[in-house]
C-alpha cells in the first residue's frame, strides 16, 4: 500500500489519498492504438473466437462506424472534451496470459503480488472470507479462485473468453439478449471490442454457495477497458455478485466502457453489488477514468428478482444507469446507490425500471453527495407499460451538498401508461444539518469526524444492502473520499 500522507484540512485533499494509484510493472501485450476492422479481427483472433462471435463483433463495429461520433449521447449533465477514439489502445493483456494458467500455481507471481497489493488476495490460503474472485487486469482475466467449490455446486464462473470456448451455446443464447449491440453508442463500441469479463451461470435450483467477485484493474497507459459481464440465473437459483475496480493515477483520461447483462429466469434472484473506485483524477481535475457503462438486467421469469447496489466514489466522469426490465409477472427490481463526487468529478448516474409484467415492483433509493467543484446528477426512469397491471414503484433520491461550488441535480423521468399503477417519487437536496453537527461537536467529536458520521448515516441504508466486507470497504472509501472536504 502506498504511503498515505496526513491530510491537512487547510490544503484539502492530497493526491496520495487515492491509495490505489500506483501502477504495476508488468509486461504486456498491446494492440496498436486506434480502432478499425482489423483491430476487431485481431481481438477476436487473440481470443480464438468462433465465427459467430466475430460476425457479431463486426456487425457492432459496422453499426458504430455508420452512426458516427455524433451518436455519442449528449443528454447527460457532464462536460468533457471529445474522446478521440483512434487514440485508444483497445487491447492490452499481461504477457503471461498467452497461455492461460490452468491453476493459480501457474499464475505469474508478479501478478499475484500485484493483486495482493490492491488488497485482493488471489491465493486461496489467504481467503477473503469465501469470495470467489475473477481478477481482470486491463483487458483479460488473469485468475479465478475457488473453481473446485463452484464446480461441485454446478456453478459456472469463469472469464467470458473461456466461456465462449467451453459453453458456446450458453453464451450465444444470452449474449446481447439484454443489451443488443445496437443499444447505445458505448455499448456498441463495447460489443465490437470487448476483451474479457466474467461469465456466470447458476443452474436451476442452485443457491450459489459463495459470493462471486470480479476485480477490474486498468494498468496499461492509454488503454481502454471494455469488459463484458454476463450472468444468468436459471430457474429458482440465487447468486450474489460483487464487482470492484481501480486504476493507476495518470495524467491522461482512460476510457472504461463496459457492458453488464443479467438474466434472471423464473423464481431466480441476482444481487449485483459494485464498488466503483476508478481513479477520479487529481484535485485539479486532471486525468481520471471516464466510466461509461451500460448495465441492464432482465427479470424474465415470474417472481424473479434483480437487485443493483452501487457505491460510486471514483472516476472523473461516471455515466451509468443500471436498469431492470421487469418482464415476468411479480418480478422485483431494486436499485440502491451512493454516488460521491469530489474535486472536479462528474457523475450522471441512476437507473431505469421498465415494468412490463403484472404486479411488478421496483424500489429506487439513491443518495448523492457532492463536494469540492463536483457535479452529481441522479437521472432515473420509471416506465409502467400498459400491460403492467398493479405495478408499484417507489423512488427516493436525496442529495447532500458540501461546499458552495458543487452541484446536485435530480432528473427523474416518470412514464405511466396504466391506471392501476402506483408510483411515487420524492427527492430532497440539502446540506449537512448544522444542528446535527453542533450536537456531535458539543460532545467532543471534531468537525471532520462529525461530518463523516452524519454522511455515513446518510448512506447507511445503502451500505446495509452490501455484503458485509464490502460494506466495511465502502465505509472506508467514503471516509477517504471525504477527507479534506470540510474545514
Amino acid at each position, binding site marked *: 500500500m502506498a504511503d498515505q500522507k496526513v491530510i491537512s484540512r487547510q490544503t484539502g485533499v492530497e493526491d496520495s489519498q487515492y491509495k490505489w494509484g500506483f501502477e504495476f510493472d508488468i509486461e504486456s501485450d498491446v494492440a496498436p492504438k486506434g480502432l478499425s476492422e482489423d483491430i476487431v479481427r485481431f481481438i477476436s483472433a487473440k481470443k480464438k473466437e468462433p465465427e459467430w462471435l466475430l460476425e457479431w463483433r463486426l456487425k457492432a463495429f459496422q453499426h458504430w462506424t455508420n452512426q458516427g461520433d455524433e451518436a455519442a449521447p*449528449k*443528454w447527460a*449533465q457532464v462536460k468533457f472534451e471529445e474522446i478521440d477514439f483512434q487514440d485508444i489502445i483497445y487491447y492490452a493483456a499481461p504477457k503471461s496470459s498467452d497461455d492461460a494458467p490452468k491453476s493459480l500455481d501457474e499464475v505469474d507471481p508478479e501478478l499475484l503480488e500485484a493483486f495482493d497489493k490492491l488488497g485482493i488476495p488471489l491465493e486461496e490460503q489467504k481467503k477473503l472470507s469465501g469470495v470467489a474472485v475473477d481478477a481482470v487486469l486491463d483487458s483479460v482475466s488473469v485468475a479465478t479462485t475457488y473453481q473446485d467449490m463452484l464446480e461441485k455446486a454446478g456453478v459456472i464462473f469463469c472469464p467470458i473468453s473461456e466461456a465462449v470456448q467451453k459453453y458456446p451455446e450458453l453464451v450465444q443464447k444470452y449474449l446481447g439478449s439484454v443489451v443488443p449491440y445496437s443499444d447505445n453508442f458505448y455499448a456498441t463500441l463495447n460489443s465490437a471490442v470487448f476483451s474479457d469479463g466474467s461469465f456466470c451461470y447458476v443452474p436451476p435450483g442452485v443457491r450459489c454457495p459463495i459470493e462471486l467477485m470480479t476485480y477490474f484493474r486498468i494498468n496499461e497507459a492509454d488503454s481502454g477497458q471494455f469488459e463484458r459481464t454476463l450472468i444468468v440465473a436459471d430457474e429458482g437459483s440465487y447468486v450474489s455478485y460483487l464487482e470492484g475496480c481501480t486504476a493507476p493515477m495518470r495524467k491522461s483520461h482512460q476510457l472504461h466502457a463496459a457492458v453488464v447483462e443479467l438474466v434472471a429466469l423464473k423464481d431466480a434472484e441476482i444481487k449485483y453489488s459494485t464498488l466503483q473506485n476508478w481513479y477520479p483524477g487529481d484535485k485539479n481535475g486532471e486525468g481520471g477514468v471516464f466510466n461509461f457503462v451500460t448495465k441492464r438486467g432482465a427479470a424474465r421469469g415470474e417472481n424473479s428478482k434483480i437487485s443493483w447496489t452501487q457505491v460510486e466514489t471514483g472516476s472523473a466522469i461516471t455515466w451509468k444507469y443500471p436498469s431492470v426490465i421487469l418482464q415476468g409477472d411479480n418480478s422485483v427490481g431494486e436499485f440502491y446507490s451512493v454516488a460521491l463526487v469530489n474535486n472536479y468529478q462528474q457523475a450522471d448516474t441512476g437507473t431505469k425500471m421498465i415494468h412490463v409484467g403484472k404486479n411488478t415492483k421496483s424500489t429506487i433509493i439513491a443518495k448523492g453527495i457532492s463536494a469540492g467543484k463536483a457535479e452529481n446528477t441522479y437521472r432515473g426512469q420509471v416506465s*409502467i407499460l*400498459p400491460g403492467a397491471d398493479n405495478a408499484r414503484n417507489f423512488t427516493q433520491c436525496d*442529495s447532500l*451538498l*458540501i*461546499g*458552495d*461550488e*458543487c*452541484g*446536485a*441535480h*435530480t*432528473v*427523474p*423521468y*416518470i*412514464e*405511466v*401508461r*396504466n*391506471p*392501476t*399503477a*402506483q*408510483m*411515487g*417519487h*420524492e*427527492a*430532497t*437536496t*440539502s*446540506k449537512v444539518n448544522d444542528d446535527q453537527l453542533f450536537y456531535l461537536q458539543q460532545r467532543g467529536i471534531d468537525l471532520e469526524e462529525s461530518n463523516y458520521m452524519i454522511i455515513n448515516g446518510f448512506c447507511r441504508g445503502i451500505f446495509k444492502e452490501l455484503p458485509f466486507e464490502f460494506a466495511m470497504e465502502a465505509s472506508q472509501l467514503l471516509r477517504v473520499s471525504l477527507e479534506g472536504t470540510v474545514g
Partner: protein
Amino acid sequence: MQDTSTIGDKYEEDYELLSADLPDWTSDFRNEAMLAFKQIGLPIHRKGNEKWKYTNARPIAEPQYSLAKFEEIGLDTIKNVAPWNDSWVNVVFVNGLCQGIFTSDTASNIQVFNIASDELPPNIAKLVGGIVDYSDDGFAAWNSAFMSDGSVINVPDGDNSGTVINMIFFNQGLARTVNHPRVLVNSGKKSNINVIENYVGGGDNHTLTNSVSEIYVGESATVNHYRLMSETDHTYDVGYGRVKIDTDGKFNSRAFFRGCGIGRYDLNVLVDGENASCDLQGLYFTSGNQHMDNFINIDHSKPHCQSNLFYKGILDGNSRAVFGGTVLVRKEAQKTDSIQSDKNLILSPKAEVDSKPALFIYADDVKCAHGATAGNIDADTVFYMRSRGVDLETASRLIIYGFAGEVIDKVEIEELRSYLEKAFLTSLPNHRFEF
C-alpha cells in the same frame, strides 16, 4: 435539433405583407425575430431534444398556416364561454387581434396599450422581448416576427387596487390559420394586479394559437396570473410565458387546462430579486386524444427566495399529459426554499402520463424537495365513503372533484372560481373506482 425546412416561403411573404402596416419601432425587433425563426425553425425532431422529449411538435409545425383575420363578434358570444364581470377591465381579442376594451371601471389608473403601436411609451417599448429567448425553440421567435397586435398592461407604482384585467382570446377556428397573441405586463413598485389570459373558441378546423406573454413583477409588487385554456380538440396551442420577479415581488400563477388537441405551456419564472417568491399551480384535465405538455421552469438567481410548483392532472380516454418542470438554483441563490410537485390521476387504461420534475442545484444552503405521483386512487378512500353510505358513482365523483378542487379552491376571484368549478364539474368523466 431543429429543422428549418418547416419555414416555407409563405411565411416570408406574409411577413412582408404585415410589415407595411406596423410602426417603425417594431421593424428591427421583428426583423431580428424573423431571422432567428428562419435559423432555428420549429422543434420537429425530438431525438436529443430534452425540452420536447415527450411531445411531438410535427403535427403542429407541419401545416402551412395563413395569418388569421379579424372578424368582429358579439359580446354575448364571448360572455357565454368566458367569465366576465363588467367592473373588470375586459380586453377582447378575436383571432389574435383586438376588438376592444370593455369596462365600467373608469377610475382605474392602469394603462392598457396596443403593443404594436406608436402610442407605446419608449420605456415600455424597450421591455418588449426583453425576457424572451429566441433560441429556446422557434415558437417565440415566430410570434415575435408576426407581432402585430396584443396588449401591454402598465400598472403604475403603488396601484394596489387589485384590478382584474380579463383578456379573452377568442379563436373562431378558421381553417389552417395561426394567430399570435402577445401580452406584456409591467407592474410598478408595490402594485397589485390580477391578470386573466383566457384562450377560448376553436371549431372543427386545425388552428394554431401561438402566444407569448412577458410579465415583469416590480419591487414588492404582486401579480396574480390566471391562464385558462379551453379550446376544442382540433386546435393546437403553444403558450410561452416569461416572468421576471424583482426584490420582494410575488408572482402567483394558476393555469387551467381543459381542452385543445395538442397544448403546450412553456413557463419560465426568473426569481431575480432577494426575498422574491413565486407560487405556480396548475390543473389539467385531458380526455379523448388530447395531449397537454406543461413545461414549467423556475430559475432562482438571488438569495432568500421561495418557490412552490404544484401541478395536478386528471387523464381520461386516449389522452396524454406531459409535465416537465425544472427548478434551477444558481450558486448565488443561497437560502432558497423550493418545493415542486406533480400529481396525476389516471382514469383510463389508454391514457399516459410522462412526468419529469427535475432539480438543478448549485447552492449548498438550500431546502429543495420535489415529488411526483401517478396512478390510481387509494382503495381505502373509496371504502371510507362507501362505508358511510355514499354510492360508488357519487364517491368516485367526489374523489375526482376533490383532487381537482385543491387547485381550483386557491382561485381568489369569485366569478372565476365559480366559473372553473362549473367548467370542471361538468366536464369531469363519470368514472367508477372499482377495486
